[in-house]
């Protein structure tokens, strides 16, 4: 075909924490350094850098990409920040893929960093200004509103109960017990989730992933370089992204059609025609528990409305037919927005290499997908990896 292949050859990640002592640039450095070490490379080997990070309002710095530059290894290099809201973490390696697949470079460093704790009194405050400044902000909306609105629409469409949805939180939070980056590793039960504080019905506190500080990085390489660096390259086989209208209240929230479009774009590139059969491990974005179900359906990993039943049957457990969020996901590991997306890509990378340790799923998987979502119920970003 003549297309340049791109592989992931190294990954780094920090612990996800409630409040990091490190600054944003320092966090970026820790993840970048670890990814380079893992790949057996020095910063001077890196030709280009792309960084993903969510709103500047978290860190309280305008032009946040420029602020994080020195920690992300961007000094004296072509460096750019990509940004698709909550979808950024999975988009960042797609952006890196563009750098290498185009032939612009052979080695590209992809960094995602998020320091949410800088925003006071609570990072939620930064979310007021995601709503339309004229037609919505005067109503003083919170981010939780929109999730509650979407969650209810989804549950009502398929007649799901709170317990149907909460099982995702239980699965992911328990999976996270095995993840070294996990912010609050605690075993939770279905009752814990259902009895946790109600924030905006139907959303309870344990339906939501915790706000975190954290960073992650991967090193991408062209085919020749990748084969020199490792005998276990993991190839970026398909990439897709899609952005829906800003008029979010004018579409039916029960189904993420933009995720489906992004997934179809990635699957077509990867030559995947039957995703529910061909994909062996998935990391759908799970900032809220119902979101994992929503995204499984958008990723065409199951029929619409079936995701909750499959979850209850253990189909998505680590030992199930299609493990989802074996990492523990955003719900379990924590949700430093962009770093979470990249953490998911790293999880698929490790699972395909058979290096996920206690989290390793059986059956030597060859194909996996990671996905993130963002903006006002608008962005889907999808990456397909293959061993």
């Amino acid at each position, binding site marked *: 075909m003549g297309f340049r292949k791109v592989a992931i050859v190294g*990954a780094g990640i920090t612990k996800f924490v409630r409040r990091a002592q490190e600054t944003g640039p320092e966090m970026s450095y*820790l993840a970048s350094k670890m990814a380079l070490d893992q790949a057996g490379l020095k910063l001077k080997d890196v030709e280009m850098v792309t960084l993903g990070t969510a709103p500047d309002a978290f860190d309280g710095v305008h032009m946040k990409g420029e602020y994080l530059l020195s920690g992300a290894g961007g000094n004296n290099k072509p460096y750019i920040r990509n940004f698709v809201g909550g979808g950024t973490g999975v988009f960042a390696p797609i952006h890196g893929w563009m750098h290498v697949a185009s032939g612009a470079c052979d080695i590209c460093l992809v960094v995602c960093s998020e320091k949410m704790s800088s925003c006071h009194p609570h990072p939620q405050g930064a979310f007021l200004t995601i709503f339309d400044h004229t*037609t919505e902000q005067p109503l003083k*909306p919170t981010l939780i*509103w929109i999730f*509650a609105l979407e969650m*209810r629409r989804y549950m009502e469409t398929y007649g799901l109960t709170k317990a149907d949805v909460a099982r995702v939180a239980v699965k992911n939070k328990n999976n996270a017990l095995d993840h070294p980056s996990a912010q609050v590793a605690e075993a939770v039960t279905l009752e814990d989730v259902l009895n946790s504080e109600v924030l905006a019905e*139907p959303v309870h506190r344990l339906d939501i992933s915790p706000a975190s500080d954290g960073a992650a990085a991967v090193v991408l390489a062209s085919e020749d370089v990748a084969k020199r660096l490792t005998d276990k390259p993991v190839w970026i086989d398909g990439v897709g992204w899609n952005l829906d209208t800003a008029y979010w*209240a004018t579409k039916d929230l029960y189904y993420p059609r933009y995720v489906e479009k992004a997934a179809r774009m990635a699957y077509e590139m990867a030559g995947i025609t039957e995703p529910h059969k061909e994909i062996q491990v998935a990391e759908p974005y799970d900032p809220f528990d119902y979101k994992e179900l929503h995204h499984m359906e958008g990723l065409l990993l199951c029929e619409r409305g079936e995701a909750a039943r499959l979850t209850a049957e253990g189909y998505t457990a680590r030992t199930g037919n299609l493990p989802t969020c074996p990492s523990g996901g955003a719900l379990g590991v924590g949700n430093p927005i962009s770093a979470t997306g990249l953490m998911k890509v790293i999880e698929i990378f490790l699972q395909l290499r058979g290096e996920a340790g206690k989290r390793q799923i059986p059956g030597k998987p060859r194909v996996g997908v990671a996905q993130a979502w963002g903006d006002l119920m608008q962005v889907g970003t999808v990456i397909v990896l293959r061993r």
Partner: protein
Amino acid sequence: MKIDNVPMKGLSSEEYEKALKITWKPNLHYTWDNGIGIGKYLQSLKEGKILASYCEKCERIMLPARAFCEMCFRPTDKYVPVKDTGTVNTFAICHVNWDASRLKPDEPRHIPAVIEIDGASSGQGIMHLLGNVDPAKVHIGMKVKAVWKPATEREGSITDILFFEPY
């Protein structure tokens, strides 16, 4: 490759309190130009009407009013007032403020909803609040009507509608 020993440990609440910090409260102010479409929408709210736009090509009546049809990528053909009644598409019962602080037990809960407005194309909704209603009785499909501020107090804002109530 093994990723098991990850850096960073995080500060406990106690350590955080003791840590040296720098505080900055940005003074950021904006005055956004409403332009043609939203300008007309707000003017119309001041007059006690909800305004939509009509596109002849896709035959959609769209909310809020807009100067161009984003799907056909052409100017919309006319502005049409729609009713101030609608159907609840979905709703939430919210116990927290926008900054994540909790509402006091005696404060009324916020009930945000997506309301599909009568007279607009199917599915064309806006986000607003519900009021004058027992939260336990709200349901998807409930018919609601706008409760407007008195004409003299309206200023051309989405808050010229106080909330929607069942009717």
